[in-house]
């Protein structure tokens, strides 16, 4: 009897803790969650937005997958994701979700080859073969072909990839899938894949540590991270056959192509001859129909105005933080998408 009673009391105690947690939702703050990649940009834009319009935004950088889950559970007003919803996520949400491009980012290939400080050139196919473990030495004729005049050492290649599931890996493997058939068949694209070769580093910092320390290493990190940490990075061949050095300009150019109306597009291996080929949008995700879960029309309007601000005034914050601003065609598409959002079937903006 006594045991049962104390068990009952304990359950009541635990339950009351849970209840008091969920009751503390905030009313006048817009909530967002998702991508860690876009977090520095969002925090800058949102603090300025608060100063200008007095609307607070609370964005939790929990990863794209987590952001989508939070949006599915309707606990946030918008999610942040580096990849569009996949089929399963789409099915789980069940209603139309708008993808609004916020900025674009590039993934760069960094390396540590003694004697080659800068200016290494790589074709997409060779890059995939390196990551497949097929090209194993820097003196391979395949790499030498792309780098006339560069003296490449006889040194084993140490492949470094991200160990944690991340949008960066998704963009990188998406590119490899498009340019190398064997990669597409054996490995595929995802935020975490079954890497055929190499070491995994945790986060951009983990990859940087391994690449900087290991002679012969090759790894991939976000452009912003590489610039801030003075890592050398390779020019990568794009669809038109040109070797493009990743910069904010070439990243923006990669999205200056004809975009589909829903902006759910993979930018890798872009058609733009001047664009860098390993790039992607990062999206904010919101429900198309904003009247759900007892939301007020006012809150919906606030959210849409915030998104509108992001794709216009907010874009000036991109470059100082090493994000590539949206291209002209991307802003146009984003405007149209925002105008399609509704409250009770009526357009909000």
């Amino acid at each position, binding site marked *: 009897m006594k045991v049962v009673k*104390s068990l009952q009391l304990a359950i009541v105690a635990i339950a009351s803790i849970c209840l008091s947690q969920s009751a503390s939702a905030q009313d006048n703050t817009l909530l967002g969650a998702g991508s860690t990649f876009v977090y520095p940009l969002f925090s800058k834009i949102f603090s300025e937005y608060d100063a200008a319009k007095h609307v607070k935004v609370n964005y939790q950088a929990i*990863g794209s997958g*987590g952001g989508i889950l939070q949006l599915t559970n309707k606990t946030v007003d918008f999610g942040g994701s580096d990849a569009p919803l996949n089929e399963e996520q789409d099915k789980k949400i069940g209603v139309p979700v708008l993808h609004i491009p916020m900025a674009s980012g590039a993934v760069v290939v960094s390396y540590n080859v003694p004697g080659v400080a800068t200016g290494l050139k790589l074709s997409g196919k060779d890059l995939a073969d390196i990551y497949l473990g097929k090209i194993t030495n820097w003196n391979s004729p395949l790499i030498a072909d792309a780098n006339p005049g560069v003296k490449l050492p006889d040194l084993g290649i140490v492949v470094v990839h991200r160990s*944690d599931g991340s949008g960066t890996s998704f963009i990188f493997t998406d590119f490899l899938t498009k340019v190398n058939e064997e990669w597409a068949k054996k490995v595929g694209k995802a935020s*975490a894949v079954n890497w055929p070769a190499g070491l*995994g*580093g945790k986060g951009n910092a983990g990859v940087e540590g391994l690449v900087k*320390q290991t002679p012969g290493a090759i790894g991939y990190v976000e452009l912003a991270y590489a610039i801030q940490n003075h890592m050398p990075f390779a020019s990568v061949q794009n669809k038109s056959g040109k070797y493009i050095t990743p910069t904010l300009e070439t990243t923006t150019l990669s999205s200056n192509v004809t975009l589909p109306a829903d902006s759910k597009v993979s930018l890798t291996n872009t058609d733009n001859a001047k664009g860098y080929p390993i790039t992607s949008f990062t999206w904010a995700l919101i429900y198309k129909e904003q009247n759900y879960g007892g939301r007020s029309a006012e809150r919906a309007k606030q959210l849409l105005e915030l998104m509108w601000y992001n794709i216009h005034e907010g874009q000036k914050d991109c470059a100082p933080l090493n994000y590539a601003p949206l291209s002209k065609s991307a802003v146009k598409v984003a405007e149209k998408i925002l105008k399609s959002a509704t409250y009770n079937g009526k357009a909000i903006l």
Partner: protein
Amino acid sequence: MDKNKRLDLSYSQMKWETIFKRILSVMSAIIVIVVAGVLITLVVESWPSIKSLGIGYLWGKVWDPVNNIYGAYPFLIGTLLTSFTALIISIPFSYAIAIYLGEYNPKGWLSDLLKNTIELIAAVPSIIYGFWALFVLVPVVRSLETKIHVAPYGVGVFTASLVLAVMIIPYAAALGTSLIRMVPSPLKEGAYALGATRFEVIRSVILPYTRSGLFAGILLSLGRALGETMAVTVLIGNTSAIANTFKDIFFGPGNTMASVIANEFAEADHALYLSALIELGLVLFFVTVIINLIGKRIITRYTNN
């Protein structure tokens, strides 16, 4: 008047007695419920994976989220290998510290300094160990690997075990120290009176007397090593492929269950993937339980003899 007061007092004493007892039992019940709740959640959440992958999950060697193929074998091996290697490296240190602080130098500034330093080892966040080792220890290991002719990655099972060993020393050392101090002095004095040296007293009085407690300390360390995540993730190389020779497995990159969960959980974007990761947690739970049961068995046997 006088009598009544005393009666009141004993009433309130009685009341406190009941309340205190109730608090104690509720507290312990909460812990039991939490552990049971964790187990139930793990089973329920990993059910889709258990149903679709079956028992083959345990010895499947491929972990491929793109094609929904999941096998826990490489991570199971990685977890056990790092934990036991770390344990073997740490035992001499933790026993030496326990004996020194418990018997040779139980008081004084040197003893205090050493004790505080060891407590500090336990207080340092594990990510600090990870990144310290990544930038300091890894180059050292890499040059060692070049000398013994294995692929000079620097990171891998061996490096992770070294750092794990340092991290788990305080647990066995602290428990050992307090147990050795608790050995009744009549026992030791008797041995000394018979002409035993200090070493002989330690070997034939103190160690046999504290054996089960010292072993419990090791179990505590092992439990910590099994679940350690961040430092290991940074250092182990995170490769799910298993090498062919033991030398390559030991010095080469590997992966543990805890680090796979930490790495991939946040971005697991389909149901079976998420469920397979949670099943890894369930396997880790059972590994810990099994090792603890075996440990308890060994302790009882030692104590009976």
